[in-house]
């Protein structure tokens, strides 16, 4: 499934170094939870964890060559949920997840996130090869080293799909997301400083195709409309169409975050291999192409290596 554009768009670097970074906090919490996993795994909870190494060649969503900054990110996530059957066709899942990202260069973008999710799923029949639909809501708090970007993320999703046969699995999802961040001091009188709050809608289509028992290909397409944050040095072209502007020390003392409205088209391809039934190793590539107000367009390419473990 395609990752959300804004997750990469509204991250920042703090010029200061705090003793206990968000990433460190995540690591400590994850280690604590992992220590409890054997007991949790024996209950009726389902646990999963995944880690990711990716390179984003345009972290700040910049359009001008001089503003483009690439970085390599390590991300980890621990999720837990419980399933409650409701009648014959419905199920309710309740869960939460703890995640974190660590940037190689832009340390201020390191972040930790803690959230909860609730979803209702309907299957039209028994078994793996029946259509299904799911509606879900989630709430998460993300804490960055660069406090300007701290946000509460509200997300509603509506998804549906069907595994057609042993080889093909198809699904699509509509997502509405609001990231509520603290408004920053106005750097330009009369223009909002609330550059890190964003609202967006996203539509994705996904397919998986099994090559053999252990390997499958993944394809995804994405259409997103909504707020994007582009970090760049001041220029008239972006300034005149921005709905909010805030200082962005994460990228440098002369950089500013501009909130624009944009449309993103993207795709993702990947190949995944299961060395054991519990493990999945993946190699993926994502390409995003955004057209924002005032001709401020940018692209980003994100190759990644991932590892998933499901208890």
């Amino acid at each position, binding site marked *: 499934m395609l990752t959300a554009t804004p997750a990469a768009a509204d991250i920042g670097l703090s010029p200061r170094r705090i003793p206990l970074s968000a990433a460190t906090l995540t690591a400590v919490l994850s280690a604590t939870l992992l220590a409890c996993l054997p007991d949790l795994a024996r209950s009726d909870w389902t646990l999963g964890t995944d880690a990711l190494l990716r390179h984003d060649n345009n972290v700040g969503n910049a359009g001008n060559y001089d503003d483009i900054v690439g970085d390599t990110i390590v991300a980890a996530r621990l999720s837990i949920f419980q399933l409650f059957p409701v009648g014959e066709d419905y199920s309710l899942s309740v869960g939460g997840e703890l995640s974190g990202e660590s940037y190689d260069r832009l340390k201020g973008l390191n972040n930790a996130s803690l959230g909860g999710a609730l979803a209702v799923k309907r299957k039209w029949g028994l078994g793996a090869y029946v259509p299904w639909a799911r509606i879900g809501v989630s709430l998460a708090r993300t804490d960055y080293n660069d406090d300007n970007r701290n946000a509460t993320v509200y997300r509603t999703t509506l998804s549906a799909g069907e595994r057609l046969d042993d080889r093909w699995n198809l699904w699509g999802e509509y997502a509405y997301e609001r990231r509520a961040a603290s408004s920053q001091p106005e750097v330009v009188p009369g223009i909002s400083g609330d550059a890190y709050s964003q609202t967006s809608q996203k539509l994705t289509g996904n397919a998986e195709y099994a090559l053999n028992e252990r390997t499958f290909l993944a394809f995804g397409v994405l259409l997103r409309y909504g707020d994007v944050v582009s970090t760049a040095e001041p220029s008239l072209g972006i300034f005149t169409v921005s709905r909010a502007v805030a200082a962005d020390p994460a990228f440098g003392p002369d950089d500013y975050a501009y909130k624009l409205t944009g449309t993103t088209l993207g795709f993702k391809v990947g190949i995944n291999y299961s060395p054991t039934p519990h493990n999945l190793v993946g190699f993926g590539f994502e390409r995003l192409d955004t057209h924002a107000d005032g001709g401020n367009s940018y692209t980003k390419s994100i190759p990644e290596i991932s590892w*998933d473990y499901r208890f």
Partner: protein
Amino acid sequence: MGLPLLVKVFAAGIGMAMMIGAETAAAAALNASVMDQHGKPVADTVVSATPLDPKNALRAKPPAVVIDQVDKQFVAYVTPIYVGSRVRFPNNDNVRHQVYSFSPAKRFDLPLYAGTDAPPVLFDKPGVVVLGCNIHDWMIGYIYVSETPFFAKTVSAGTASLEDLPSGDYLVKIWHPRMNGTEEATSRRVTLTAGTPVNLEWQLTVKPTFRIPRVSGAASPGYP
């Protein structure tokens, strides 16, 4: 005629013992070996022998069978049973399972349960029954409901042995979940005689497996 009752009973016992002994002495054996198209042994192949003489089709009481659920998998993956058997599906995981089958040979649904709460299921029609779990889509298992009591399953070496079969003519056939072609196409007529085991070999074309991955990416919506 004039023998005391005790002598009659003793004589009858001797006779029965002789009959049993004769039947044991007449028991035949069949050794099967199954390879795939690449010459590799095929495990989990069911080998069944149907006697052509109905008198040889012993109607033994079907044994109780257990198919376990461990680490969110059916154990065993393939289970041959005799028609009329009852199968229990204990859940040795600490998450609940909902075992079902849509197969014509047996349709059933065991609502979500833990432990040994589920009642046994009677399999009273021959055929192949595909098992699934409505919660864990990757769980799959097969029950081969045999119309003959003479069957065995190949081990990892691709071999299986059927022993203590009454001497006579049989139709022997094999079945595997991923075999290309029909079970009937593998059928062979053999004559089994006591003391002379028959060795049969098959080469199957086995289709690739596309089992649903247990982990299909963190964003996959398949589970829950």
